Structure formats: structure tokens, C-alpha cells
């Protein structure tokens, strides 16, 4: 046995923890090695001194148990982190959310303030641009291609675009609509011709001539409907004679019940009668117009003119005065005042 190996076994040898074989080998080495033997004696001496030393431990406090138990009872209830984990997680999430909200609010407001003029300028710029690019100058013979230029769909409803600026809406409204089909064109043509024929009842034939109405307008209308293949309309009975119509309409106009109710028709009727020299009808239409729209100064002025033509001076004065009261526009206002002065002299 070597010295290093033997010195490691001094303590277990003194404790009696070695086997008989190891104890015998240690003793053999100590017998032949004075250095190891001297160190073994030193350790044995110190070990004996330590084991026999009078080093009593401190006496425990007599109330150490009470003190410990008192501290145990004073201890706050031990936290169960597993149970408290959801609460802590919720608190952390709430704080994180609050921080995110605060950050968003604090940084978005100045950004919006900075971007507001830019957005406004972009909108204005966009409103100035047309919805469709401008057409390039078409080459010769390309008219047919122009006719097939893109147009807005017929079902496009401008009311469904509330967010668009007014200028864009105006541009959209001014764009060419979809090309109408042939039946639609025919129907529009029929409507125009029917309106013209209706007006011819008052214009083409002077009153009291007794001439037979040529029935041109109904014939045109029937021809137009026939062109569209609308045979039922083409088989309409012939229009009444002008004489009969004139008499009936004159009688009804006297009662004021057969006059048209729309503003445009009454105005057209007044102009037509004025051109045709039909003073009574002109006055009747003007009277009807003022009864329907009593707050229109121009209508009262027209009634005054019509009343003068049929020598209804008092009605003319009242009509002019009413027109002046309703702030008739120039130059009719001066004319009305002049007529009032003239009628006053008379």
C-alpha cells in the first residue's frame, strides 16, 4: 500500500469502518512508514481530543416550540401559485391591453392630424380626375368604334355612392348612358309625336273655322306604333273631329275643368294661345295657372297681360299689383309698373 492510499484510510480506520483486510494492510504500512505512522498518531490524538472535548451545545430556549408555532400561525397563508396563476395572468393581460390602448391613442392622434391635409388633398385630386380615361383621337372611320365606347351600366345608381364627392357624382351623371335599344327609341318617338299631335289641337286650326281635323297626329302615332309592331295601338279608333274637340274643349275651358294641371302644359298653352290670338283661352290658362300657383309673380304678370287683352281692366290691375307685391323680377317688374300707371290713368 502506498502512503497516499494509506493516509486516505486514517479516519475510517479510526472509526472502525474498514474491513479486516484493509485494516491489516494499513497497519502493515504504518509499521514500515514512519511518516505515515507519525501523521496517523497526530490525527488519532486530535480525534480523541475532539471526541472528548467538553464542548456542550447551547441549551435550547424553553419556549422554542411556542415561538416556532407562533411564527407558523402568524405566517400568511402559503400562496398556491397554481390557483393564483389565472388571476395573475388576467391581470397581466389587462395591463398589457391597457398599455397597448394607451400607446395606440397617444401615437395615432398626431399621426391622423398630420395625415388629414394629405388625405384631403388626395381626395380633391381624385375628384378632379375623370372616372374614365380620356379618349384618344380616333382615326378616320372609327366612328362606329366610338359608338361602342364604354358606358356606365344601366343599373348604376348614383344614390348608392354616397361617399363620392359631388364633383365625381356630377361627372358620373354627365357620362353617356347606355345606348337605348330600338324598341325604346320607337317608344320615345311615339311619345314625342303624341305630344306634338296633342298640341296641334290648339295651334294648327284657328278657332271657329269649322275645318275638318286632318288627324295627322293620330295618324303619325298609329304609323309609329305600327312600325313597332304594336297592332293593338294601331287599331285605335280615329281621333275625334277638331270641330267637336274645339267646341268641347272651349266649353270645358270656360268651366276651367278641362285645362291641364301641370305647369309646363299651362305655360305652353298660354304661349300657344298668345301666338294664335286666342285671348279668352290665354286668360283662362293664366287664371288657371295663378289659381294653381298663387305665389308666382310671373304668372300674375301673365294673367294681367291676358286680362288686358279681353278688357278686364280691374282684374289686370289686381294681377299686376299682385305681381309687384310678389317681387316680380326685371324687366317684367318695370313693365308691370308701367301698365299699372297706364291703367290708372285710364
Amino acid at each position: 500500500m502506498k502512503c497516499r492510499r494509506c493516509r486516505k484510510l486514517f479516519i475510517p480506520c479510526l472509526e472502525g469502518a474498514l474491513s479486516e483486510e484493509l485494516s491489516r494492510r494499513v497497519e502493515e504500512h504504518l509499521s514500515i512508514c514512519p511518516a505515515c505512522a507519525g501523521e496517523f498518531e497526530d490525527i488519532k490524538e486530535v480525534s480523541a481530543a475532539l471526541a472528548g472535548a467538553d464542548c456542550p451545545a447551547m441549551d435550547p430556549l424553553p419556549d422554542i416550540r411556542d415561538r416556532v408555532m407562533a411564527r407558523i400561525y402568524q405566517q400568511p397563508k402559503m400562496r398556491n401559485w397554481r390557483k393564483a396563476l389565472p388571476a395573475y395572468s388576467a391581470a397581466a393581460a389587462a395591463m398589457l391591453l391597457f398599455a397597448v390602448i394607451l400607446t395606440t391613442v397617444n401615437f395615432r392622434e398626431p399621426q391622423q392630424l398630420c395625415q388629414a391635409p394629405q388625405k384631403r388633398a388626395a381626395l380633391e385630386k381624385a375628384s378632379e380626375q375623370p372616372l374614365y380615361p380620356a379618349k384618344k383621337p380616333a382615326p378616320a372611320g372609327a366612328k362606329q368604334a366610338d359608338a361602342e365606347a364604354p358606358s356606365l351600366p344601366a343599373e348604376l345608381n348614383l344614390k348608392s355612392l354616397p361617399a363620392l364627392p359631388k364633383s365625381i357624382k356630377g361627372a358620373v351623371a354627365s357620362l353617356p348612358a347606355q345606348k337605348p335599344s330600338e324598341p325604346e327609341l320607337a317608344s320615345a318617338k311615339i311619345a314625342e309625336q303624341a305630344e306634338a299631335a296633342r298640341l296641334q289641337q290648339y295651334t294648327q286650326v284657328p278657332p271657329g273655322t269649322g275645318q275638318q281635323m286632318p288627324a295627322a297626329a293620330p295618324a303619325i302615332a298609329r304609323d309609329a306604333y305600327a312600325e313597332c309592331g304594336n297592332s293593338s295601338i294601331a287599331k285605335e279608333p280615329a281621333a275625334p273631329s277638331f270641330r267637336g274637340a274645339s267646341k268641347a274643349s272651349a266649353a270645358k275651358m270656360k268651366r276651367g275643368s278641362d285645362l291641364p294641371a301641370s305647369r309646363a302644359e299651362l305655360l305652353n298653352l298660354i304661349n300657344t294661345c298668345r301666338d294664335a290670338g286666342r285671348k279668352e283661352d290665354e286668360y283662362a290658362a293664366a287664371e288657371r295657372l295663378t289659381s294653381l300657383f298663387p305665389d308666382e309673380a310671373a304668372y300674375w304678370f301673365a294673367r294681367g297681360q291676358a286680362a288686358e287683352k279681353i278688357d278686364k281692366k280691374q282684374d289686370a290691375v289686381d294681377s299686376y299689383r299682385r305681381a309687384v307685391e310678389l317681387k316680380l323680377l326685371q324687366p317684367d317688374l318695370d313693365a308691370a309698373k308701367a301698365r299699372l300707371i297706364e291703367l290708372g290713368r285710364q
Partner: protein
Amino acid sequence: MNKTALNTVKESEPCSDDLQIVRQVLTGDTPLFGHLVDRHKKRVYGIVSGMIDSQDEVDDLVQDIFIAAFKAIGRFRGDSKFSTWLHAIAVNTTLRHIQKMKRRRVFSLDNGGYQFLTGRDAWAHESAERGREIRIAVKSLPDKQRMVVVLHYFEGLSCPEIAETLGCSVGTVWSRLHYACKVLKVRLESGA
């Protein structure tokens, strides 16, 4: 409390009294922990007083050791004796306290050197003269060697028990005792 740790406690443990008390404490019978304090207070006082001279510090530290044991009693697996487990807590707590006190040492102008704030040495003067010399010599040992000496020679623990308490091998305990004895031999001969 950890019920799984309680279930791992074997019924046929030699120190079944401690295990039964631990089992009842785990079920909520806290006052029974006082019995464990009464049973092990002397050994715990010996361990702590072997390392620390101040009576007040020893009293406070012993209380801290038992409080720590009560808090950690749910982690007692029953693989070893309760006394061994409690001694390990005492050793670790004492060594940690000594390290903390070393960090709080101050410069003293009276003796011209560093010293520990260990308080009074009255208890050491009350011991026998030889015992006082030995204790002073042991006090000069490194902490780990000192703890092994206290546990082995003052508290009477065997080397395997010390190894289990400290969590080291028996050879380590033998080695620490060997070197401690060599140092003490020199210190005692020179008058420490």
C-alpha cells in the same frame, strides 16, 4: 400541501413516529409540528451553535430552520429519515447565514483587522478551558470542514449520516475530517 409526497412515505419506516407526525401535519394538523420541534431542537441547536457563537443569532436561526422545515414539509419524500432531512435544512441554513454574515463584516480599528459581527462570546467562556481552546480552533476551520467536525465530533453523527445530510460521498467526509484534524493539530500545538 403535497398529497403525492405524503403517499410516497413508506409505512415500514424505522422512524415511523416522525413519519406519522409528518403525515398528520400534511393533512392539516399543524399543532403536531410542535412535537417535531421538541424532538429535534437539541440536535438543531447543536449544529447551529457549533457554527455560530451568538446566542441570539442561534435562537433566531433555529426558529428559521423549523419554519423553513414546516414550509417545505410537503416536499419531504420519505426517502430518508426526517432527522436527516431536517439536519440538511439546518446545515444549509446555517452555512447560508454564515456566508451572509461574512458579506456584512466591517473593518475594526481596535484590533487592526477584520472580524465577524458575531456578538458576544460569553457562551465560549463558560465552557471548559480545553474545550474553549478546541472550539476556538474549530472556529478557524473552513466552513465545510468545520461543519463536518461539528456534526461528527460534537453531534455524534456517523460519516455516512453526515454524507447523507450534506449530500456528498462518504469519502468526501473522510477527506474533510482528515484535513481538519491536521489543521487542528497545528492550531492546538501553537495555542490557536
